[in-house]
């Protein structure tokens, strides 16, 4: 049929569908943001989400930060060793962690946990008509379900990343003082000597944006899922994949626009 015969029409259709998708996502994001600021506020739901996004992500974020910090110290030690600049290891490690690896790796890990959980939960609620039931009970699902999730993730990610930053630096320090021959106090001194507040803050701002992306994609995919258990599975996968890609893309955009100094 024409589908195979007309690649131009195919590309055109795919492009239109993609643009429509982007449009729907933007509307959804706007509705979610609006819901965050419109009463009634469901504080119990917010509390539950703060706990599940924040507290229960701590082990994952802590462990990945620890290993990342350690391996970073190891590699930078090798790299700087080639031109006798091993003394800069603590400075570069903390710089890399606070500005890039801390926020990005923590967010990717949390995306795997949280976006998937949100998509699965909301997706199940959608296919079992619980979201419709909410609406008929005169409760706006954006305010009841989505606002608490978006707010919780946006608030908790910076906190998680700050903790991850500290653990990451400790990971580097641990490796440097045990495997390599660094002096403990000297390493820590070097870590803070050239660190600027902005290095940390810019990473935390990114984390907030990434948190928003994680909750947004989880909610969007779950909220719009259809087609029973299979549909929920698809929503879950899509949520994690799209959140991860958007995090990396947003990271590049934010860094190149706002954080070039």
């Amino acid at each position, binding site marked *: 049929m024409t589908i195979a015969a007309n690649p131009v029409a195919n590309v055109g259709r795919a492009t239109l569908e993609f643009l429509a998708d982007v449009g729907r996502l933007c509307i959804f994001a706007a509705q979610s943001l609006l819901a965050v600021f419109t009463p*009634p506020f469901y504080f119990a739901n917010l509390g539950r989400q703060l706990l599940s996004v924040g507290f229960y992500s701590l082990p994952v974020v802590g462990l990945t930060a620890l290993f990342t910090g350690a391996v970073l110290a190891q590699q930078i030690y090798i790299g700087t060793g080639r031109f006798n600049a091993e003394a800069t290891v603590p400075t570069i490690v903390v710089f890399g962690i606070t500005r890039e690896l801390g926020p990005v790796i923590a967010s990717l890990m949390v995306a795997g946990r949280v976006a998937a959980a949100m998509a699965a*939960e909301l997706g199940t*609620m959608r296919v*079992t*008509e*619980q979201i*419709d*039931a*909410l*609406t*008929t*009970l*005169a*409760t*706006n699902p954006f305010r*009841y379900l989505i606002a608490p999730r978006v707010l919780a993730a946006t608030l908790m990610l910076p906190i998680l990343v700050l903790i991850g930053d500290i653990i990451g630096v400790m990971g580097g320090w641990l490796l440097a003082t045990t495997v390599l021959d660094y002096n403990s106090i000297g390493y820590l001194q070097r870590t803070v000597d050239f660190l600027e507040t902005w290095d940390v803050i810019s990473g935390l701002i990114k984390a907030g944006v990434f948190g928003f992306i994680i909750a947004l994609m989880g909610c969007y995919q779950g909220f719009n899922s259809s087609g029973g258990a299979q549909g929920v599975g698809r929503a879950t996968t899509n949520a994690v994949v799209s959140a991860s890609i958007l995090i990396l893309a947003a990271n590049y955009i934010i860094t190149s626009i706002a954080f070039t100094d």
Partner: protein
Amino acid sequence: MGTPKLSLEGVRKRFGSKVVLDGVDLEVYPGESVVVMGGSGTGKSVMLKCVLGLIQPDSGRILLDGRDITHLRGREREQLLRRFGMLFQGGALFDSLRVWRNVSFGLMSAQRMSKRDARARAVDILAKVGLGPDVGDLRPAELSGGMQKRVALARAIATNPEIIFFDEPTAGLDPIMADVINKLIIERVRDLGATALTITHDMASARKIADRIGMLHAGKIIWAGPVAEIDRSGNPYVEQFIHGRAEGPITMAVRRQ
């Protein structure tokens, strides 16, 4: 008979190329109990969702007490929905909440009732559908199908709505439990003085609940009349349906699309 409580005028809805509702006309008068029958997948649930605003109809009008509510959105729609109760086909109980929170959800969120009062009310309402107070502390997943239906029924009537929709209230229940649910529906509706619109393809249930019956087929209400006339409708579609015959003018599409 005055203004209908609810009327649908030429309501149409299609999904993609599939026409589901093709001009539905239906009137439900105050205090009346209307049952709509029809085969699986004929759009009975879609019809209810159009009225509730969960699905936007493509064309046609929906009137409540003579007022056009087809395109109400946002807060206005929220206000309107407080006057409705809905029992969903699958129950649609919130599985993250305990039974008493499910039952009192509308009271707490829409009517801002305090937790204590809401809980006491939930226990009252549960009693009305024949469930003890201890059920209130369970989660929906811990209940049997019949009990879930009762809880869903309790949730639908909790806010004393003026108009209640029951979407296949007896589907998937044994005949005895189905009859219990029928009785509860009749009792509760009479109690509240509510108007009821029930979807079912259970004839025994329809005869019991209905004042008037309508038959939905191919996107239209092809027959409607008092329950007493159902056996002499003279309509071959209705005849086939109430006798449950595979042969007749209604041919079952196997595929959904």
